[in-house]
C-alpha cells in the first residue's frame, strides 16, 4: 500500500538533509513498497535501505534490489556496475530493463541477522528535461561471501521529475527488520 510522505517544511528542519518518509512495516516483513507524492521542493533525493530478502536463496546469497520511478514499467532503465566479491573485481551492465537491477540484497540463507545496506543518491530529481542519473553504494558481507558495489544508473525519462519511487525486495520481499528511508537534500534557498 503506497504511503504518502508528509510534506517537509523547510523551516521545521535544520540542515540540508531532510527526512521525508520512513517505512519498516512496524518491524514485520513486507514486499514491494512505494513512496508516493514525493515533494518537489528539494534538490536531490537520498534513499537508505537496510534490508534482507525473505527468500532463503543459495550461496553466494546475493539477491537483488530494484527501483522503479513514477510507476514506469517500460524498458527505460539501465545501469553500469562495479563490484568486488572478495575474490574478483567485476564490472557489468544491463540495458533497457523494466526496473533498475541495481544492488545486491542479501538472502536470508546467508545467516541470522545478516543484512545489506544501500545508499542511493538521485541528483536533480525534479528536472523534467533531462534523463535521471542515480548513484548507489551497497555493502553486504556474509562472513565468507560478500560484495562492495557501486552503481551508476539511468532512467530514460526527460518529461517529468521523480514523484514516486517503488522499491522491490528481490525474490521474496523484505524480511522483518528491513527498513527504507527517503531523504530530501536541499540546496540554497530551499
Amino acid at each position: 500500500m503506497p504511503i504518502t510522505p508528509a510534506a517537509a517544511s523547510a523551516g521545521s528542519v535544520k540542515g540540508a538533509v531532510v527526512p521525508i518518509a520512513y517505512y519498516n512495516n512496524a518491524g514485520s516483513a513486507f514486499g514491494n513498497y512505494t513512496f508516493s507524492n514525493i515533494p518537489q521542493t528539494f534538490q536531490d533525493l537520498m534513499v537508505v535501505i537496510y534490508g534482507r530478502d525473505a527468500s532463503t536463496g543459495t550461496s553466494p546469497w546475493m539477491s537483488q534490489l530494484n527501483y522503479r520511478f513514477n510507476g514506469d514499467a517500460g524498458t527505460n532503465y539501465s545501469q553500469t556496475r562495479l563490484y568486488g566479491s572478495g575474490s574478483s573485481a567485476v564490472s557489468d551492465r544491463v540495458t533497457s530493463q523494466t526496473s533498475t537491477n541495481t544492488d545486491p540484497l542479501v538472502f536470508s540463507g546467508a545467516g541470522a541477522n545478516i543484512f545489506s545496506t544501500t545508499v542511493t543518491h538521485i541528483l536533480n530529481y525534479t528536472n523534467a528535461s533531462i534523463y535521471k542519473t542515480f548513484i548507489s553504494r551497497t555493502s553486504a558481507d556474509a562472513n565468507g561471501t560478500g560484495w562492495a558495489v557501486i552503481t551508476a544508473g539511468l532512467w530514460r525519462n526527460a518529461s517529468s521529475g521523480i514523484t514516486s519511487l517503488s522499491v522491490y525486495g528481490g525474490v521474496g520481499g523484505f524480511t522483518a527488520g528491513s527498513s527504507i528511508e527517503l531523504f530530501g537534500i536541499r540546496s540554497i534557498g530551499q
Partner: protein
Amino acid sequence: MMIPIATITANGSTSAFDFQNIPQTFTHLQLRCFVGINTGSVFFCAINNVYNNTKYPWHRLYGDGASTASGSSTTDNQMLISDLANSATTFGSFIIDILDYTNTNKNRVIKSIGGFDKNGSGQVSTSSGLYIDTTAVSRITLNSSGGNVLAGSRVDLYGITTSSVTGA
C-alpha cells in the same frame, strides 16, 4: 549537520565551477555534482587556485560495464575526479568529499564516487586524491577538460559540521 553553502549552475558558457571564499566555519565539505557535456571530457578538482603537478597524486578504481580498471598519477596539476558522459541527454552524478578542510596540520584528502550510464555504455568510479599542502581550503574549482558543460549542469557545495553554526 550538512548545510548548503553555495550553488553554481551552468548556463552553456561554463567550463569551471569555481567556489571562492569558502567559510572556514565547518568541519568537512561536500560537493554534489550533476554535470553533462557533449564531448569527451574529464572532470578535475583544484584547490585554492593551485595548479601544480607535484601536489595532486591520485588513484581511482572504475568500471565501464565490461571490464574493471585502475588508474593513478603523480604528475597531474589537479585531481582527476572522473570521465564525463559525452552525451547530450545523460548527465553524470558525482559526490566529492573533503574532510577536515581547515586543519593546517594535515595535507588534504579528496574522495569521490560517481558515474553515468547511457544504456549501452557508461562508467562508474571511485577516486581518491591527496592535495599535498596543509593550507586550509578556501577555494575549490571543478574544471571540465572538454570546455563548456551543458546548460543545466550544477554543483552544490555543502559544509558539514558537528556544531550549531549556520551557513549561508
